[in-house]
Each structure stands twice: as C-alpha cells, then as structure tokens.
C-alpha cells in the first residue's frame, strides 16, 4: 500500500507541475493567482499521501500549514492584482 500511495503522490505532483505550467505561461496577473491555489490544494494532497505512506502523522500538520498560508498568500495576491488597495490609489 505505501508504494501505491507514493505512486499516487507522484501522479498528483506531475499534474500539479503541468497545471502550474499551464497557469504560468499566461500573462494575466489574475491567472497567476490560481497557481498558489492549485499548489495549495495539490501540496496538501501530496503531503497527506506522504504522511500516510510513510506513517509520519506530523506531516499532516505541514499540510494544514500549507493550506492556511496558501489561502493567506492568495488573499494578499488578490489585493494587489485587482489594484484595489487603498494606499496604492491614495498616493
């Protein structure tokens, strides 16, 4: 079972890599925001698979951390990509 889960994590890693390529070759800022969201979700999936495959429960904590900070970074990105920040306009 561990090798099967590892295989699944490789598959997810490859699809995430492909997805990142798809997102990052576009030029719009808004498209790039999706990269963080995609890696947040994909990274969580990879880490959960690794945690169970290697029987190391603390890796689940890393997955939570990744989820929290991917969301956090995405909020900051949207703020600046949409140009809606009050300071940037005020000055």
């Amino acid at each position: 079972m561990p090798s099967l889960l590892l295989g699944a994590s490789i598959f997810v890693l490859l699809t995430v890599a492909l997805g990142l390529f798809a997102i990052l070759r576009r030029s719009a800022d808004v498209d790039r925001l999706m990269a963080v969201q995609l890696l947040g979700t994909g990274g969580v999936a990879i880490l959960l698979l690794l945690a169970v495959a290697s029987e190391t429960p603390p890796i689940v904590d890393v997955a939570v951390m990744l989820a929290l900070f991917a969301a956090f970074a995405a909020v900051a990105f949207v703020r600046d990509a949409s140009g809606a920040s009050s300071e940037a306009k005020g000055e």
Partner: protein
Amino acid sequence: MSIASVFDVALVALILAIGASTILVRKAFAAVVMFVVYGLLLSIAWVRLHAVDVALTEAAIGGGMTGLLLLGAVARSRSVNVGGPWIGRPARLATCALCALVVAGLAIAMLHPPEVIPTLAPTVMESLPQSGLGNPVAGVLFVFRALDTLLEKVVLLLALLGVWSLAPDRAWGGMPGLHVYARSDPTLIFLAQLLPPVGIVFGIYMCWVGAKDPGGAFQGGTVLAAMWLLVIVAGLQKAPAIGRLWLRGLLVAGPVLFLAIGLAGWVFADAFLAYPAGYAKPLIVAVEAALTLSIAVALGMLAAGPPERAQQQ
C-alpha cells in the same frame, strides 16, 4: 530506481524550474507569485529530508509571510520609476560562468561527503531526556543552544526597530502602511472571520505540541501573525499604531521572560540559561508560550512595514 526517488527527481525538477523562472520572468508581480510557489514546494522537499520542523517554518515564513512582504513592496514600487539598465551580454556570460563555478564547487562538496560524517545527533538524544522534551529540535533550540534562540529574538526586535526608524519623522508612532482592501468585500470578510479562529487554534496547538512533536514557538507565532494580518488586510481591524504600550509590552514580553529565566539559572542551576533539574519542561513551555506571542507580534509588525500615517487622537 525506487518509487520514492522518482518522486524526489520530479520534485527537484519542479523546484529548479520554478526557481529559474522566478529569476527570469519579467514582471515583478509574477516573480513574487513564483517565489511563494517556490516556498511551498521547498516545504515538501523538507518533508522528504525528514525535517518536519523546518518544513512547517518554510511553509509559513518562506511561503506566506515573505510573499506578503514582497507583494506590498511590488505594489508600491509600481508608482516609482523602477529599474536601471540590465548589464550587457558579455557581463551576463561572465556571471553565468561564475555561477556555474559556484554550483560546481558546491556540487562536488555534496557528491563527496566525508568518510566519517560529523553528527551531534547521538549527543542530543543522550541529553534530551534530562530536559523532559520529546522533540530533539525543540531541545536544541531551548536547551542546548538557548543563547542562540534568545539572541534571535533580539535580532527580530532589532530588525523591527530598524524598519520603524525608517519612518518619516511626521509618522513616528503612527500606523504601519500595510495595504488593505479599499472596498469591504463580503467574501473576504467571511474568510477573515472564518480562518482566524481555525488558525489561532492551530497556532496554539503548534506551540503546545512543539515540546513533543514537530512544531514550536516559531511556527505557532507565524500562524498567529498571519491570522492577525489577514484580519487587518480584510479591513475588519486597523493596524495598531506603533506607539501603543501594549504592543511594545507584547514585543518584549517573550525575550524578557526568557532572559529572566536565563539569569535565574545562574542562581538556581549554576549557569546562564541553565534550567534547574526537574523544572526544565514547565519553564521551557512557559518561555515558549510567551515567545509565541512576542514572535507573532514582531513578525506581524515586520510584515506590516514602517509607520506611514500619524496617529489620530
């Protein structure tokens, strides 16, 4: 080739590709997005290197917090005349050669490890039970190299002082110029109300679990700082003016407690930063709790930047 090494090769290739495009991409905004992706990928690499403590720190600081910091700077520099001349092709080729040399040197060092690999791990494991801790990394941070950790807190405070002292005179003691959403967005407010409770629980859990399992004051403090910034960015709460007494009190509370316990060590345990036998674990947990709060405030204020608006009273 085993299945685990396939994973590692794919991960390394992805990290290098993202790293290279961080440097080569034209727009600064795109580079910052790449950098956050790079930080999140590195934390997976740390998991593969069996360093879960470091993975937690990298995901939090390398990914999220540094990203926020750089983004604020990018957004602001749009109005400024950015950039100078890129260096010419010959110089760039020379740089390329130099970097290749550095890489080759490091790679040779990596490919030829010493015959007997120096390690302090057995020493750590031998002495760890005395401290009552279960996490060797926490043991190193708070027992064996406690002076480093104490000085690191001082470095954080010094950096914050440095950032604050870059404020224009009229803004001294005022509010940091953290960019916030101009219009209140109901979706964002929902997120800013939903995520912080989860994050605060997780941050406290990180600090608590750090004595036994991967985690600790740094990771917990960073989560708390991020949640605080999220609430501020969403416009639910204003960033505190840096002149506030409670803010400054929180900033120094952790280091002062650490220092006090360290000095008490001279009296009760014969050495600076030594813990009296049997009391090590409760003292360390107390220091970690205070440090978590101080780190949270320090990191949050560092990310918020120097004060820009004078305090309104």
